């Protein structure tokens, strides 16, 4: 019998009549039925939401709970519903089966989620710039000798999650330690990770009321965005633009992350081929922190050739193969659309798909199949300039362009970038990059774009999103 995933209404399971099937991407077999919340239910529940239960737990205790939850998430059997349970290996198996992610990538994402649980003190330190967390408990205190007072601007953080990578859950998890309940809308094909994270938190002692879990449709998602005074949403550029002027919504869209090499380091380019390839392909190229462009002042031909050879070694493998890097697509039509978009772009003069000539024998097309799954092979396109339609595109597979741009023009031409790995020691160039309002995260030196440091807030500062500082003074 298919696994039943219920709704959680402030921690209380609710079995809906409307259910959404989750199927194996490889066999099409029904694996789970996920209860669907109607929008009205969400709106009704949100009228009763409260931080009271979570505020009753001091942040110091929530950090202990988080650490314990990480261990449970990683190592222990956790509840599903109706008395069913799930071991870590079962979580890996089912997530791989329904998302197309190979076991190796699920494990890597599990590791990332575990790190967020375990590193929560460091993450909060980064978010609050080292503030004593008792300020959150008490509403006021002192930071760097200055009296401070903060208050939460919402009773709950709404999160409309995507299905593409379990790692995105790391973005909302600190809200719990910040005493803000979460209202999660899992991706249609990926209820597993947010469910397991929630169960780990609850099993470690977190008040269940802190967690609402509403698998739902577009109308339900809109209800979450509407009723939560603060919400995170993941989508494409149109999603980002739709919410650009709404301070209550943090929209996460394409990252357009980049690796750039300065004039001072370009002669050493062969040393950076592995870092470039890793930036493009790690996590199956599915994250917004994967590089989607490589920007160099010279040697674009040679670098493209070397990186393409490296990327072309990555091919679909068995889901259980520990060396598997590529992920199959849960929705093959999506792979077909992306494949067409690349092929269409290549018709515009000024671009060459460098990876094409290095594809392994027997695989001639970018789009390929294995074990019933659809894959897109890593693709590197050498573009003559940034105006080419493929120069600044992001796709949900290992895809990047490489563009030759004089160093002096790089900061101005490359546009918004979630992550920039800047391989340079040129202080003036670095100052220019630091002054750029288009760079969210700057990795200086030979670090992959995918390298995340826990005390550096990622994609916006969640604390500043959820809390506002008030002025405060006391009579002497």
């Amino acid at each position, binding site marked *: 019998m298919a696994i039943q995933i219920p709704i959680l209404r402030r921690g209380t399971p609710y079995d809906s009549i409307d259910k959404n099937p989750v199927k194996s991407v490889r066999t099409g077999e029904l694996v789970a039925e996920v209860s669907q919340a109607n929008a009205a*239910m969400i709106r009704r529940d949100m009228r009763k939401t409260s931080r009271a239960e979570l505020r009753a737990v001091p942040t110091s205790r929530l950090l202990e709970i988080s650490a314990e939850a990480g261990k449970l998430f990683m190592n222990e059997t956790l509840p599903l519903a109706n008395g069913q349970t799930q071991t870590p290996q079962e979580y890996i198996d089912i997530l791989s089966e329904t998302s197309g992610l190979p076991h190796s990538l699920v494990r890597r994402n599990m590791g990332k989620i575990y790190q967020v649980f375990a590193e929560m003190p460091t993450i909060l330190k980064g978010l609050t710039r080292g503030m004593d967390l008792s300020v959150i408990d008490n509403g006021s205190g002192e930071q760097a000798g200055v009296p401070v007072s903060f208050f939460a601007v919402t009773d709950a953080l709404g999160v409309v999650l995507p299905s593409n990578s379990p790692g995105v859950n790391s973005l909302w998890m600190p809200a719990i330690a910040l005493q803000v309940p979460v209202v999660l809308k899992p991706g249609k094909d990926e209820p597993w990770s947010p469910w397991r994270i929630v169960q780990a938190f609850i099993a470690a002692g977190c008040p269940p009321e802190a967690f609402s879990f509403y698998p739902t449709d577009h109308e339900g998602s809109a209800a979450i965005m509407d009723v939560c005074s603060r919400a995170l949403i993941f989508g494409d550029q149109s999603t980002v633009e739709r919410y650009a002027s709404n301070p209550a919504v943090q929209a996460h869209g394409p990252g357009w992350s980049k690796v750039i090499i300065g004039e001072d380091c370009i002669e050493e380019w062969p040393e950076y081929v592995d870092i470039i390839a890793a930036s493009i392909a790690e996590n199956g190229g599915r994250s917004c922190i994967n590089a989607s462009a490589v920007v160099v002042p010279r040697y674009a031909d040679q670098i493209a050739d070397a990186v393409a050879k490296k990327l072309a070694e990555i091919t679909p493998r068995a889901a259980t193969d520990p060396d598997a890097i590529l992920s199959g697509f849960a929705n093959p039509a999506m792979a077909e659309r992306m494949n067409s978009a690349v092929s269409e772009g290549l018709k515009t003069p000024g671009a060459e798909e460098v990876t094409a000539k290095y594809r392994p024998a027997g695989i001639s097309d970018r789009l390929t199949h294995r074990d019933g799954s659809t894959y897109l092979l890593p693709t590197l396109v050498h573009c003559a300039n940034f105006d080419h339609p493929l120069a600044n595109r992001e796709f949900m597979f290992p895809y990047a362009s490489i563009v030759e741009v004089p160093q002096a023009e790089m900061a101005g031409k490359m546009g918004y970038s979630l992550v920039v790995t800047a391989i340079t020691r040129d202080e003036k160039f670095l100052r220019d990059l630091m002054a750029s309002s288009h760079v969210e995260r700057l990795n200086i030196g030979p670090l992959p774009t995918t390298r995340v440091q826990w005390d550096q807030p990622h994609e916006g500062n969640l604390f500043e999103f959820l809390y506002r500082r008030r002025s405060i003074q006391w009579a002497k």
Partner: protein
Amino acid sequence: MKNEVTEEAVSQATTALDAHVREIIAWHFSPETGSPFWLDWAKTADFDPLTEVKSFADIRKFPHFQDEWLRDEQNERWIPKAYTGRPFIVFETGGTTGMPKQRIGWEDHLRDYEEFSEYLDAEFPGSFPRGANWLMLGPTGPRRLRLSIEHLAHVRGGSCYHVDLDPRWVKRLIAEKDFETAKRYKKHVVEQGATILKNRKVGCIFTTPLLLEALDEFVTVPDAGVKGVFCGGTQMTPQTVRFLSEEVLDNRAAFVPTYGNTLMGLACSRPLTPEDKYSITYHAPQPRAALRVVNPNDTTETVGYGEWGRVELTTLTKEFFMPRFLERDEAIRREPFGRFAWDGVGEVRPFGALETKAIEGVY
């Protein structure tokens, strides 16, 4: 079993429907009583309705009714000769802009709601108290519902308060993606309904599922003295019905979904139960109207019980004859049930809903 229907009852209903078909065909296609539209239509038809349509099964000889006729023809063309000289009431269909589709009528809506009133007493005793006032929160204006609900209230010894919602304005706002104004308009409408509930004695409500849900944001409906809610206008999934029954009405007020429109009248739902997983089945007000669930690829074929198909409506009254109108809905064909000795249509949803999810707006 209380709700089982005997073969004899089904047979009687079929016989009654066939006799009614013959009567209505004779009425609309006889020069002494028929309407100009149908008399003219028959002149060019490749069959003679008067001699060849003897049963409901024979209705399949008619092509599908084109609802554009209701927009393009002058209303006088639909007047049965027997009604000449009697001013008619003009009812318009729901949510389109431009020249609306219109159906003329005299008393059909009164009969539909008188019958519905008896059904409420029989199936929901005490939930729609006689003498109680009603609130009609939804599309009024030129809608059949406007007069019908008021008549229902009067038949039951109560009066009716009205709060209007203009569905055409809502559709325009949604088409223009002006969701913010649509939301404000919904709030504007629902606040008026809540104000009535708070300040006047109201025991029964007619509204749409979305407005009922929105009303709950302003007032706890059963606490306001409401004993029964009759709902219609848009599709309702079983989960929506369950949510409205169990949570918005807190199982303290009856919830009666209906399916209907200006062209048909009112199809009642079977009483809902958790055991049925709140799956709604409607039964047409036969013999005045009859519903079939048809194979969309061959609409002469009725689908089997339990199968999905497109809903086809035939309206058979002396005021209005409309054969084989293909609704924009699909449904499951359900067995006769209880007092309804004829087929029902279950889990009605917009036709092709699985392929494209239709936006039905705030009402």
